[in-house]
C-alpha cells in the first residue's frame, strides 16, 4: 500500500501574531475555542493514515512541545513512527545548508528511516478539517512529480497577499506560481511528492546555496517538474496576521461556517483538557458565542469566543472578543473587541475596548 509520511515545516512562519507570538510560535497559538493552530494540520494528517509526522521548528517551540506531548491525543504516540518534534540541535561542522534546507539536511535520517515512499508537507496557517486521501489519490493517478493542494476564495482579503497564487490548465497542470494579487486560486501550502524526489531536490538546493525548499526546489523547477494542482472545495481559511486571526475566529460564530469546519464526520483532534461541562447560572446571558468546557458564566457573553476555564462574573460583559484559557473576568468588567491571551485577570469594573479593525491584544498572565 502506498503511504505518506508527514512534515509540518514551521521554518518560514515567522512571529505573525504579534503579542500572541512573543513566547510561542504561531503554530502553538490557541484557535477556535479549544484548539491550537497546528491541530488542524496535524489532525488532518493523523486521519489520513499518516503514521509518522515530523515538525521542523527553529525557536519558540516549547509551548508546542507542551501541547503535543507524546502525540497521544492524535494517536501518534507510536513505537514505530509517531510524532517527531525536531529542534535545531545540529553538530555537523561540514554543514553548508541554509534556511529550511538545514532542517532537511540535518533530519535526513527521519526521511530515510521512514517507511513511506511519499511525503506530505504543510505549514500551520491553512485551517481546514479534511483528510488528504483524495489529494494523494490524485497525485498517484496523475503521476505528477508534485501535487499542490489549492483552493479558491471568493473574496480576497489581506491575508491572501502572502499566499502563492496558482494558474493551471484545464487538466490541473500548474502553469505558473505567482503573487498575482487578483488571482483567487490560492496554494494552501500543502503538497505531496515522492520521498526520493524530495531528497534529490534538497541536495540540489543545498548545492546551490538556496534557503527555501519550496521556492527554490519546486517553484524554480516548474519548467522541468510535472506539478499538478488538486482543488479543495471544503471550508478553509488562511490565518497569518492578527486581523485574519480575529476574523476567522469570529467567522465560526456563524452556524454555517461552524458546521462546515466542524460538523464533519471527523472531529479535529487536540489535547484533551478534562474539564467539566460549562456551567451557566441563573444570571447568565449568552448569545452567538463559541464556548469551551470548564467555563463558569454568570455574566453576559455576546458574539465571542471563550476558551477553557474562563470565568465571567456577575454583571461582566464580553462582546466581540476572544478570551483564552483560564481568564478571569471579574464582576462588572466590560470587554469589547479584545483578544486576551491565557491567564489574564480583568479586575472589577475595568473597561477595555478595541476596534473591530484593530482588536486590543492583551499578552498572557497580566492582571489589569
Amino acid at each position, binding site marked *: 500500500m502506498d503511504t505518506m509520511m508527514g512534515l509540518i515545516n514551521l521554518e518560514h512562519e515567522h512571529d505573525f501574531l504579534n503579542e500572541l507570538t512573543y513566547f510561542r510560535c504561531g503554530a502553538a497559538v490557541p484557535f477556535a*475555542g479549544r484548539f491550537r493552530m497546528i491541530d488542524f494540520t496535524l489532525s488532518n494528517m493523523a486521519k489520513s493514515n499518516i503514521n509518522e509526522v515530523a515538525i521542523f521548528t527553529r525557536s519558540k517551540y516549547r509551548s508546542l512541545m507542551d501541547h503535543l506531548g507524546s502525540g497521544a491525543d492524535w494517536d501518534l504516540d507510536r513505537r514505530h513512527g509517531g510524532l517527531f518534534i525536531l529542534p535545531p540541535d545540529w553538530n555537523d561542522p561540514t554543514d553548508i545548508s541554509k534556511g529550511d534546507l538545514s532542517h532537511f539536511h540535518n533530519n535526513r535520517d527521519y526521511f530515510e528511516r521512514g517507511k513511506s515512499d511519499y511525503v506530505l508537507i504543510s505549514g500551520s496557517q491553512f485551517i481546514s478539517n479534511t483528510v488528504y486521501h483524495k489529494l494523494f489519490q490524485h497525485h498517484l493517478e496523475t503521476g505528477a512529480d508534485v501535487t499542490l493542494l489549492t483552493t479558491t476564495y471568493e473574496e480576497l482579503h489581506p491575508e491572501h497577499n502572502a499566499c502563492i497564487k496558482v494558474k493551471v490548465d484545464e487538466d490541473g497542470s500548474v502553469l505558473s506560481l505567482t503573487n498575482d494579487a487578483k488571482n483567487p486560486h490560492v496554494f494552501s501550502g500543502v503538497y505531496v511528492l515522492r520521498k526520493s524526489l524530495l531528497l534529490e531536490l534538497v541536495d540540489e538546493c543545498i548545492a546551490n546555496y538556496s534557503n527555501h525548499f519550496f521556492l527554490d526546489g519546486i517553484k524554480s523547477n516548474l519548467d522541468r517538474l510535472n506539478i499538478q494542482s488538486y482543488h479543495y472545495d471544503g471550508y478553509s481559511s488562511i490565518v497569518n496576521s492578527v486581523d485574519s486571526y480575529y476574523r476567522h475566529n469570529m467567522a465560526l460564530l456563524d452556524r454555517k461556517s461552524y458546521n462546515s469546519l466542524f460538523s464533519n464526520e471527523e472531529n479535529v483532534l487536540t489535547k*484533551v483538557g*478534562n474539564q*467539566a461541562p460549562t456551567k*451557566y447560572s441563573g444570571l447568565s446571558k449568552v448569545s452567538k458565542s463559541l464556548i*469551551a*468546557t*470548564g467555563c463558569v458564566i454568570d455574566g453576559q457573553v455576546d458574539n465571542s469566543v471563550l476558551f477553557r476555564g474562563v470565568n465571567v462574573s456577575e454583571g461582566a460583559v464580553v462582546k466581540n472578543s476572544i478570551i483564552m484559557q483560564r481568564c478571569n473576568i471579574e464582576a462588572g468588567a466590560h470587554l469589547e473587541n479584545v483578544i486576551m491571551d491565557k491567564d489574564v485577570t480583568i479586575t472589577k469594573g475595568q473597561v477595555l475596548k478595541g476596534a473591530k479593525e484593530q482588536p486590543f491584544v492583551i499578552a498572557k498572565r497580566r492582571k489589569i
Partner: protein
Amino acid sequence: MKKECVTMLLAGGVGTRLGLLTKNLAKPAVPFGGRYRIIDFALSNCLNSHMHTVGVLTQYSPLELHKHIGVGKPWDLDRMEDGLTILSPFTEKDGGSWYLGTADAIAKNMNYIEGYDPEYLIVISGDHIYHMDYDKLLQHHKEKEADVTISVVEVPWKETSRFGILNTTENLRIYEFEEKPKNAKSNLASMGIYIFNWKVLKNYLVEDAKLSSSNHDFGQDILPAMIGDDRLLYAYRFDGYWKDVGTIESYWEAHMDLLKEDLSLSLNNNDWRTYSHDSNFAPQLIEDTAVIQHSLINNGCVVAGSLDHSILFENVEVSEGSVVKQSILHPGVCIGKNVLLDRVIVQENVTIPDGTKIVASREEEPIIVSSHNLKAVHS
C-alpha cells in the same frame, strides 16, 4: 513482578433499578454529569491514588464499556508492566463458568492477582460517583493492622434499609454485617470498597468456592464468615464527595444537585481531577436565540432553544423554539423545533421530532426516552 497492592474493579453489574438506562449497557458505562461515565470516577480515583495495577471485571453487556475504557489512556493505565487489564470470564481445559457473585469473580481471577504477589487487595465497585484516595484507606488499613478494612459512609437513618449496614464498636471494629436491615442499629453503610490482606482473603475465597450453598458474595458470605472467625475488620469513615445513583430518581437528583454545587470542589476539583474519554468535539455554539439558565453544557452542543436546569452531554442539539427543563440529554441527542421536555432523560443518539411534548410531573419518576418508547411517552 511484585506489587504491594492490586485493585479489582467490579464492573459487571446489571444495575436493574436503572431501568432503560442499563438495558444494553453495564451500569458503570451509564453517562453521568454531562461528560463522564460512572466508571470514570473509580478509574480517576485509581490514577489519583497512585493505584496502577487494576483488573476490571466485566461480564454483562461490556461492549460500550470496553470501548469507553479502551486501553486506559485517559487514566494513564496503558502501561507495559501492569496498568489496566480487563478480566472477562474464560474457559479452561475442564470447561468454564460465568462469574456468580462478587467473591466468585475475584476467586476466578486468582491467577491474575497472584501474578503480582500482592500484600493487599483493594476491591472497588464501578457503580458510584465519588472522589476517594484509596491510598489513605490503605494507610489506615496498615495502621490498624486489620485483616479487612471497609469504607463506610453515614446515610440518613430512614434510608438504612437500602444499604449493607455495618455495626461497629466505638473504635470502628466491625462485629456485625446486616444486609438491608429493617431496624438498623447503625447508619454506617458499606460503600462496597474493601481492602483485604490478600493471604487472608485467599483462604476464605478457596473455602467459599467449595460451598454449594454460598452466593459467593462479599457482603453475604465472605465478610460474615470472617466476622464469625473473629478476624479484625475495621470500618473507615469516608466523608468526601459521594453520590449514589442506583435508581432513576437518585440518578436524576444527583444531576440536579450538580447545578447547585461549586464544581471547582467536585467535577472540576484541580486537586482531584476526574478523567474521561474525550471525542474531541468542537466547543459548544450558543446561537442568537438561545436562553440558558442553570445548566451544564459540554462540547459539540449547538443550542438555539431555551434551557433551564438541564444537563447536555456532548454533541447535543437543541433547536429553536424548544424548551428543555430539568432534563438530562445524553450524547448525540437531537431535539427538534418547538419541543417541550420537563423531567426527562433522553438516551444516547435519540432524535426528538419537532413539536414533541414529554413532561413528567413532580410526583412521577423522571421519564427515560429511548428511540423505542418515543411515541409511548409523548404526552
